[in-house]
């Protein structure tokens, strides 16, 4: 674990965490600290509780229990002793600390006119490690190239949380802005200007405007900027050739993306979804997909400790989902193995299936209009 992150923890907690076995430290993903409840970590897609001497156990009763004092101290350190300065972040439920690590917070919300205005009595922390994995992008990038216009196709990276979307997008951004296309046919392409709209400060982990991750030489970062506005700002003044955004999902994001695409900019975005059918089920993404905005989908999934990726072109995606939906209409159980059920219509059909997708009821709006506009793309 990086040293600066360690220094955020209050001393007694740090002692426990410093004694974790080395192999755990290597693959540490999350540290979950809950007041008066056992200390949990997750590493290499497994979870475990931690005893006071740093050894791991599956038995939660034997685990170390962080106290109220420690939680208070941790909160103070995470917010740089200034809760008042991170009110906006508290409203969203997480704080990003130097190094790009995101700390999710759980506590009691304070409402103001029906909107979450603040989080108090914070008693749960989820420390998520941010890692630069140089080389990850090199495996994926060759599949995304557009040889005619010598750049990448519009790409949406899709996966459930915690599979490395942000890590991948960061490394691809680095490759593009430094001109490492990782493909024999693209040796003389040169690099491209990359613009990153980093709403959660996770891609670049900027400190005072300067990215702390290596993003290559031709990269501009709009830190902590709302995506929709950020994309427009980029287009207006920073003349990017590729725009990178994280976790799209709100209607205004889609609008801005459309704007970018028609301004001749390539888009690289990520979204939360477990598979393609999920993409077609989320209203905003479904609309983007139906408009044929994306040329590629990258699906990430984790097998064992390794992240596997699969690149699907737009046509294949439409085929695949329509196949699935026609099967769903046939009322097969959801967990039935697919692909065997129906003789697949191999022609790309702008099928009734897609229509059924779009006709899906929108999720119920639970709070007044303002929150609905804000959307639910936070994880």
């Amino acid at each position, binding site marked *: 674990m990086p040293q*600066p992150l360690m*220094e*955020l923890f*209050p*001393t007694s907690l740090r002692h426990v965490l410093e004694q974790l076995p080395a192999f755990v430290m290597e693959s540490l993903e999350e540290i979950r600290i809950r007041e008066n409840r056992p200390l949990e970590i997750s590493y290499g897609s497994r979870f475990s509780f931690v005893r006071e001497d740093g050894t791991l156990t599956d038995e939660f009763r034997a685990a170390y229990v962080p106290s109220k004092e420690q939680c*208070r*101290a941790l909160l*103070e*350190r995470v*917010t*740089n*002793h*200034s*809760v*008042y*300065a991170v*009110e906006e972040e508290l409203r969203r439920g997480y704080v990003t600390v130097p190094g790009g690590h995101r700390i999710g917070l759980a506590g009691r919300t304070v409402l103001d006119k029906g909107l979450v205005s*603040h989080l*108090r009595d914070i008693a749960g922390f989820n420390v998520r490690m941010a890692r630069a994995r140089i080389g990850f992008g090199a495996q994926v990038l060759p599949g995304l190239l557009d040889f005619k216009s010598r750049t990448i196709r519009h790409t949406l990276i899709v996966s459930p949380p915690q599979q490395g979307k942000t890590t991948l997008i960061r490394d691809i951004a680095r490759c593009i802005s430094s001109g490492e296309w990782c493909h024999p046919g693209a040796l003389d392409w040169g690099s491209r200007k990359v613009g990153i709209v980093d709403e959660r400060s996770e891609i670049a982990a900027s400190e005072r405007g300067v990215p702390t991750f290596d993003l290559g030489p031709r990269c501009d970062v709009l830190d902590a900027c709302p995506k929709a506005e950020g994309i427009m700002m980029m287009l207006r003044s920073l003349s990017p050739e590729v725009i990178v955004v994280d976790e799209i999902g709100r209607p205004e994001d889609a609008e801005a993306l459309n704007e970018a695409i028609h301004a001749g900019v390539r888009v690289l975005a990520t979204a939360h979804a477990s598979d393609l059918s999920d993409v077609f089920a989320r209203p905003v993404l479904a609309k983007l997909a139906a408009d044929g905005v994306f040329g590629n989908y990258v699906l990430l999934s984790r097998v064992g400790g390794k992240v596997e990726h699969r690149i699907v072109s737009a046509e294949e995606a439409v085929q695949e989902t329509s196949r699935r939906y026609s099967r769903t209409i046939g009322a097969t159980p959801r967990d039935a193995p697919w692909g065997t059920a129906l003789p697949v219509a191999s022609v790309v059909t702008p099928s009734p299936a897609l229509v059924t997708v779009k006709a899906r009821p929108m999720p119920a709006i639970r709070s007044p209009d303002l929150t609905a506009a804000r959307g639910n793309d936070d994880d």
Partner: protein
Amino acid sequence: MMIKFVGILLVLFAGTMIGFVQAARFAARPRQIRQLLHALQRLETEISYGQTPLPEALLRISGMMQQPLTALFATISKSLSIESAGSGETVRECWENAVLAHWPSTAMKNAEKEAMLRLGATLGGSGREDQLKHIRLAMIQLQAEESTARDDQQRYEKLSRSLGMLGAALVVILMV
């Protein structure tokens, strides 16, 4: 005879000096409280408009203070920054340690110290509105202390100056 004379002079000098030092303390107290009030006012601005993180805000404040308050705020700010994790974990601890360590070098008394300690216990731990309320509360307390300090100054500053010299004279008379 010569030695006696020197002794008398020394006693007189010492007594006068004690009186002057005492008087200076009476004069310094309202001045320092005033400075503290300015500091809190600045802190209020930093919190409400700048949303400056506490360590940085305190560092800036320490820049516009005079000794010994400069040292007080600089110490707190330094112990809050993450690199030096030795002197306390929370704002309350750092604040308390620094105030207790630096208070003897100021001319201020217990009432002001209490007000500051109470402020330190809440600083940084809550939302903006709440912080401002606490700071204002501390300022009101300090203002009350300031007016009593001014009264004390008017009443005792000259008194202690002359008392020092007269006391010394009394000692001399008794000894001779």
